[in-house]
């Protein structure tokens, strides 16, 4: 079946200003602004966030370590590119073992093409390339970002949402109930 869907956007969430943006999943949308809204609805229902980025999936250049190793002719080809340098953002996944390891924003680099940005990233030592399993490279112009004055409308509701924390429900074991608190709602006693 051919893919007749709206474009897919990858969503990057920043939990707090000290943390990098992390790829949390994707949404489909007719444009970047609605991708941002959809990304907010799907990925910031409960968790805290201060910023979202969305990037159309077709604008992300991706390489896994396995693909790099399986493509020995990758480097000679890209070395021929020439043109005006632009800013590329590098995202990396640096562990294989824990399930909560995301592709994270790792920094930026000036280059002519995403391939060259990746080569520079691997060669210049800033990105700890030996420990990178997945590389994503995105030109700055392709990143659509939430704005600072959107924080209240996009992210504040999740922070104040009632019942968002499972710790709200401490009272769960009937065998420990004797030591628990009674908090049956008055109108449920009827």
């Amino acid at each position, binding site marked *: 079946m051919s893919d007749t869907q709206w474009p*897919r956007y990858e969503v990057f969430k920043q939990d707090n200003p000290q943390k990098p943006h992390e790829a949390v*999943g994707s949404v489909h949308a007719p444009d970047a602004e609605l991708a941002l809204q959809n990304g907010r609805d799907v990925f910031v229902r*409960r968790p805290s966030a201060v910023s979202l980025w969305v990037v159309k999936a077709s604008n992300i250049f*991706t390489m*896994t370590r396995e693909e790099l190793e399986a493509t020995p002719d990758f480097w000679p080809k890209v070395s021929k590119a020439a043109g005006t340098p632009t800013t590329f953002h590098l995202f990396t996944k640096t562990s294989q073992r824990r*399930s909560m390891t995301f592709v994270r924003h790792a920094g930026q680099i000036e280059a002519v093409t995403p391939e060259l940005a990746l080569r520079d990233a691997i060669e210049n030592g800033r990105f700890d390339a030996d420990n990178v399993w997945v590389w994503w490279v995105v030109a700055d112009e392709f990143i659509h970002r939430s704005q600072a004055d959107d924080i209240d409308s996009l992210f504040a509701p999740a922070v104040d949402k009632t019942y968002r924390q*499972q710790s709200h*429900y401490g009272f769960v074991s009937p065998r420990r*109930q004797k030591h628990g608190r009674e908090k049956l709602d008055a109108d449920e006693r009827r």
Partner: protein
Amino acid sequence: MIEQTLEVDDKLAEFEARIARGEKIEPGDWMPDEYRRQLIRMISQHAHSEVVGMLPEGAWIPHAPSLRRKMVLMAKVQDEAGHGQYLYHAAETLGATREELLDALHTGKAKYASIFNYPTLTWADVAWIGWLVDGAAIKNQTMLAQASYGPYSRAMVRICAEETFHYKQGKEMIVHYASSGTPEQKAMVQDGLNRWWPPTLMMFGPHDSESTNSEILMRWGIKTKSNDELRQEFINEEVPEIQALGLEIPDPDLHFDEDSGSWIIGPIDWDEFWQVVRGNGPMNAERLAARQEAHENGRWVREAMAALYYKFVTDNYSKVSKAIGLSPERN
């Protein structure tokens, strides 16, 4: 030809070695076709289950006994919708499209958790779904959070954290009604247990000896425990909790086995299980109709978004129209 086969054998050996080392397989990495096929099958069934799972509980939102319970239930049902989205995304990383997955659901081709083909007759059923159904789902999902496919395991970690809230809110209600409720509430809770206990045990799937997919799923690190192992863990954890409330589990054969330290259950009615899987459960037709209707009721939203898309990409309009099922000549 022989060289090709050898190459695939080498790749398969390296793939299995990576899994043995505990590495995650990521989109773009080489994987056997069967690994991809099994994952799309599992993840999409799981996504459909989250989406259809909104129906039995959503029906009770207008009838919640208090504002607090209503807000909790709304938050929970909203979570299930979000879980469906996480999972459709994970399936898409394997090359499936959302369109074909939804098509399969709406035409009745796709399977989803059979448990949602049972009706929610009383408010206690909402509570039992939280405790038993979400409890059983957490058992499975906690295991799948370790799965060898990166995007699936990451979706599972997020889902498990939220399912724990679902489990706790359900259990909290049952504990309240069974220990401090009126005689009618106690009877309602026992009645719900009688109906939800048997299909909950079926949620873990056929016995290991009958499960056709288990072996390959375990070999490739998608599952790390068998159906029967997970079912037994669940039974051992929940039976004492339920009995502590003075409730009677509807299984005359249920007994504690000192030697194994396990609660042993009587036979599971697999005929009923397969009947429901094949579409003959009490609510199969209604669930499917509700999903089709919901999709149809969302048409105006898709039209509005298409109109926006049209503004920017006029020359792609026929493609957009096709994507959302509009007639191409409409303006």
